[in-house]
C-alpha cells in the first residue's frame, strides 16, 4: 500500500514516515505544495496524507487537483488548523477523513486503514489476525470460525487494536478513540480497563490466545508474536 505524506515540518514528517513504514506502508513524502503537486500528477497512491498549511500553497488546492483528476487515492487531511470550517470544507471537497494536529499515530493508523479498506474493497474484505477474523462491514468477529458477541465499544476497541498490531497504544489514544477526542484521558482510564478486561475474557472464552498485552503504566499492545 502506497502512501504520499504531504507535510512541511521535517521533524514530524520523518517521525510519521517511520511510524507508517513500521505499519507496513510504502511511504513517499512531499515537503511542500510544489513537490506534492508533482507527485500526485505523476504517481498513483492508495492514500494521500495531506497537511493543509504548506509554505507555498493551500493543501485544499491539492485536494481539488486530486478530485479534478478523478484520483482513486483516499485523502486524509491532517492539519494544525483545527478550525472546524476547514474540516467541513475539506470533507465537502471529497476528503475521506480529517485529523487535527496533534494526533495519536495509532489513531492515524486506524483512520488510514479504514480509508484504504473502503476504497480498495468497497468494504468487502476482512481482517485476519492470528485466530481472529473480522468483517468490518458486518461488524462481525469470528474466533476459530465461531462468532464472538461484543458490545459496540468492545468491538471498536478490538478494531483499534487490530489497526495497530505490534504498536503500544497509550491509554490516552484508546480513550479518545472510544469517546471522541475531547474526552480527558484522566477521567477515563478506569473504563478502558473495564472494557479491555471484558474483551479479553470474551476472547479467552472462545479459546483465543491472549495477545492483548498490558504495558504497565503506558497502555496496551496487540502482540504480533
Amino acid at each position, binding site marked *: 500500500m502506497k502512501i504520499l505524506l504531504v507535510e512541511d515540518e521535517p521533524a514530524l514528517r520523518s517521525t510519521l514516515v517511520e511510524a507508517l513504514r513500521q505499519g507496513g506502508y510504502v511511504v513517499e513524502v512531499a515537503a511542500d505544495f510544489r513537490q506534492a503537486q508533482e507527485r500526485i500528477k505523476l504517481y498513483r497512491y492508495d492514500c494521500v496524507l495531506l497537511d493543509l498549511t504548506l509554505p507555498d500553497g493551500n493543501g485544499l488546492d491539492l485536494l481539488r487537483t486530486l478530485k479534478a483528476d478523478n484520483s482513486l487515492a483516499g485523502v486524509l487531511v491532517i492539519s494544525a488548523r483545527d478550525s472546524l470550517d476547514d474540516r467541513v470544507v475539506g470533507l465537502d471537497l471529497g476528503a475521506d477523513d480529517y485529523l487535527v494536529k496533534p494526533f495519536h499515530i495509532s489513531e492515524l493508523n486506524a483512520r488510514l486503514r479504514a480509508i484504504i479498506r473502503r476504497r480498495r474493497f468497497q468494504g468487502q474484505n476482512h481482517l485476519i489476525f492470528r485466530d481472529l477474523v473480522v468483517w468490518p462491514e458486518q461488524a462481525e468477529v469470528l474466533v476459530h470460525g465461531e462468532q464472538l458477541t461484543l458490545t459496540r465499544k468492545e468491538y471498536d476497541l478490538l478494531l483499534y487494536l487490530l489497526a495497530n498490531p505490534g504498536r*503500544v497504544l497509550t491509554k*490516552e489514544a484508546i480513550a479518545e478513540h472510544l469517546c*471522541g477526542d475531547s474526552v480527558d484521558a484522566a477521567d477515563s482510564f478506569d473504563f478502558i480497563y473495564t472494557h479491555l478486561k471484558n474483551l479479553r475474557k470474551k476472547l479467552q472464552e472462545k479459546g483465543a490466545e491472549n495477545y492483548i498485552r498490558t504495558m504497565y503504566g503506558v497502555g496496551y499492545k496487540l502482540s504480533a508474536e
Partner: protein
Amino acid sequence: MKLLAATNRYYVLLSAGLFAVGSLVLYIGTDYAVRNEVGEQLHNHRLEVEARVASGRPLPEPLYRGQYSTSLRPRSLGFSDTVLLDPTEGSLVPHRQLTFRMVRPGQPPVWITLRKSLVEVDELLMAVVSSMLLVLGLLLGGVVWLHRYLSGRLWAPFQRTLATLRTYDLQQHQPLALPASRIEEFTELNQALTHLSSRLVADYENLREFTANAAHETQTPLAIMQAQLEQLLQLPALADDAAAAPLLADLYGATRRLSRLHQALGLLSRIENGQFTQAVPLDLASLLAEKAEQLAPLLEARGLALHLDLAPAPLRRLHPGLADSLLHNLLHNAIRHNVPGGDVAVRLTATALAVSNPGPVVSGDPSRFFERFRKHNAASESPGLGLSIVQHICAYYGFGLSYDFAPAGARHTLRVSFEPGAEG
C-alpha cells in the same frame, strides 16, 4: 451629589451673603437719604418762616403740634433727633427737628422748632428686607430654572456620552464614535474617549491576534512532541528498563494535556474572534443522544445513570463544531462533578436545555464558575475551561445561561435558554 446641585449650593451661599450685605447697605443708604431730604425740607421751612416774619406777618399758628412749636425759653439750636408719640397710632415715631431763634422787633426772642417725621425703622427694614427677599427669590428661582434647563440641554451631549460608554462593549471591536459637541469641553472629552477606545480596540486586536498566532504556532511543536514520544514508546529497548516506559507515558500524557489546553484556549479565542459564522440547522435532540452514546463508557465507569428527556425541539441554526462543544462540555461537566452512584439528567424543551447532576455543595460565587481556569478542585487535571467555553458559546449565540443549586438532593443545574428574551 450632582455637579449642578453642588454648584447650586455655592450659588445659594453667595446669594445669601450678598443679600445680607445688600440689605445693610440699602438700609443705611435709605436712612441717610431720608435724613438728608428731611433736613433740607426743615431748612426750607425755616427760611419760609423767617421770610414771613420779616414781611411783618405774625408767626403761623401750629397746625399739628408735633410739626411746629414755639417757645419763649431758650432751646438748644440746630438739628437733632427726637422721638414723639403718635397718639393715633400709639407708637413712638422718630422725628428730625430743627430749632432756631427768631428775633422780632419789639418782642422777646422766640425759639422755634420745626419737626418732620422720619420713616419708622422697622418699616424701613421691612421694606428693604422684603424687596431684597423678592429679588433673592427671583434670583434663586431663576438659577434653579436655568440649571434645569442647562442640565436638560447643555448637558445632553454629556449624558449621551455617558450612555454610550455604559453600553460600550470591547468585544465588538469597534471604537466609540462620539459626535462633536457645541460645547468645547464635551468635544474634548469625546475626542479623548474616542481616542482611548480606538487604542483599546487596537490593543485588544493585537492581543487577539497574538493569542491566535501563539495557539497556532504551539500546535506544530506539540504535534512533533506527541508523535515522537509515541514513536519512542514503540522502541523495543524500553523493555530493558521498567521505569522508562511509564516515564515516557507520563510525558506523553502531559503533552496531550497541554495540547488539550491549547485547543480549548484556541477555541475560546476563535469564538471571541467570531470565527464561527457558518451555521447549519441542527437537531439538538439527536446530537444529545449521540453525545450521550459517546460518553456512555464514562458514565458507566463512574456508575452514573443518564436520564434523557428530549422533547422534539425545533432545529437550531448553529455551527456544528460549537454545538458539539457546547453539549460535550455541559455533559462532561455534569459527569465530572458528580457523586458515585449519581445521575445526569438532561432535559431538552423547545426553549431550553437543562443539565443537572447531584454533587457536593460548591462554595463561592456561582457567576465565577464560568471564569477561565476556574477549578472546583485545584488538584484536578482539567484546566477548568469547560464552563467558560459553554459561556462563550452561549454569549456568541445570545443564549441565556444560568446556574442553579437545589439543596434538596444537592442538585446542580446548568440551564441554557435558547430564547432568553422571549422567556422574559
